[in-house]
């Protein structure tokens, strides 16, 4: 199994955050903290990002800048950034989601966007635990979250197996017009992500998976 670390991230940066348990990330979610300067392998050697040039690569710059580029808008101004590091276990995912949403709400993210973010992020993280790391809790996951006006821009890193065909699955919601005993018990994850999130992108960067997406409160959508 691939066990690489995120670019520029010291391997033992935060061993406490990799402990599996009830409070795996609370200490590593730092409101207002700048995202680590992972310019990504593709951009390594370039000047450290200063938020002035909207990067074109999912692995470089801030999630907020990626979204600004996707929206063809100028680079996003300084935005609160949350970072969470966690182990690849479903319990750690639960802790990270709670901690991130609590912090995001405290920083002013509205309830609706927060709900959509939590759902989309949960599915993305569960996929990492289940498919990228095959339920091996020794893996690492890093989440970067930029909060903007009406948007939450998110990037998820992991060092597990690549996405099948190195691209984001586009599986639709499973067909439910089947007999009771044939009803699907899974296969909803990516369809949920697609229906909750926008501007999805995925890249495999030096042994790491890098998934970015953005979430906003859809008009008229009652969370």
């Amino acid at each position: 199994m691939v066990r690489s670390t995120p670019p520029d991230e010291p391997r033992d940066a935060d061993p406490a955050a990799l402990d599996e348990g009830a409070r795996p990330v609370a200490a590593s979610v730092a409101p207002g903290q700048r995202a680590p300067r992972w310019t990504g392998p593709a951009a390594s050697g370039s000047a450290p990002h200063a938020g002035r040039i909207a990067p074109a690569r999912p692995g470089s710059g801030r999630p907020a800048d990626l979204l600004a580029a996707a929206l063809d808008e100028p680079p996003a101004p300084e935005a609160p950034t949350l970072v969470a590091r966690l182990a690849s276990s479903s319990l750690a995912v639960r802790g990270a989601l709670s901690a991130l949403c609590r912090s995001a709400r405290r920083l002013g993210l509205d309830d609706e966007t927060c709900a959509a973010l939590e759902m989309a992020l949960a599915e993305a993280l569960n996929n990492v635990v289940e498919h990228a790391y095959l339920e091996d809790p020794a893996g690492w996951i890093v989440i970067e979250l930029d909060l903007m006006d009406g948007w939450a821009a998110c990037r998820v890193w992991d060092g597990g197996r690549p996405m099948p065909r190195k691209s984001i699955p586009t599986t639709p919601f499973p067909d439910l017009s089947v007999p009771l005993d044939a009803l699907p018990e899974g296969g909803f994850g990516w369809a949920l992500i697609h229906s909750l999130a926008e501007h999805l992108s995925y890249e495999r960067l030096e042994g790491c998976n890098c998934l970015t997406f953005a979430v906003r409160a859809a008009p008229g959508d009652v969370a």
Partner: protein
Amino acid sequence: MDMAADTQGDVTIVTVRSERIDAASAIRFKDRMRELTEGGDGRVVLDMAAVDFIDSSGLGAIVSAMKVLGPERKLELAGLTPKVMKVFRLTRMDGVFTLHADVEAARAHGASAA
């Protein structure tokens, strides 16, 4: 997974006291559902009023619990909170289950059908 069951007449109310039915608790949820409903033969109403969050694993666990009950026993859901309802709506699972506003509505529904 904190869950409890109360059977009155032909209705078993299973109350979920945990806030989340997610990937970390889906297996435990299925086990508890089986323990709490085995031996009975009436309707089962799952009271989800305390559940604030469900992911696709949790949704799958509820579908699984419905299958375990078999075609003779109905699994109905009550008290879905907004975020939980949204997941049911997006996946169209809201059309698969009978949904009730709360446990009282679920009981009344059974009484009127009887």
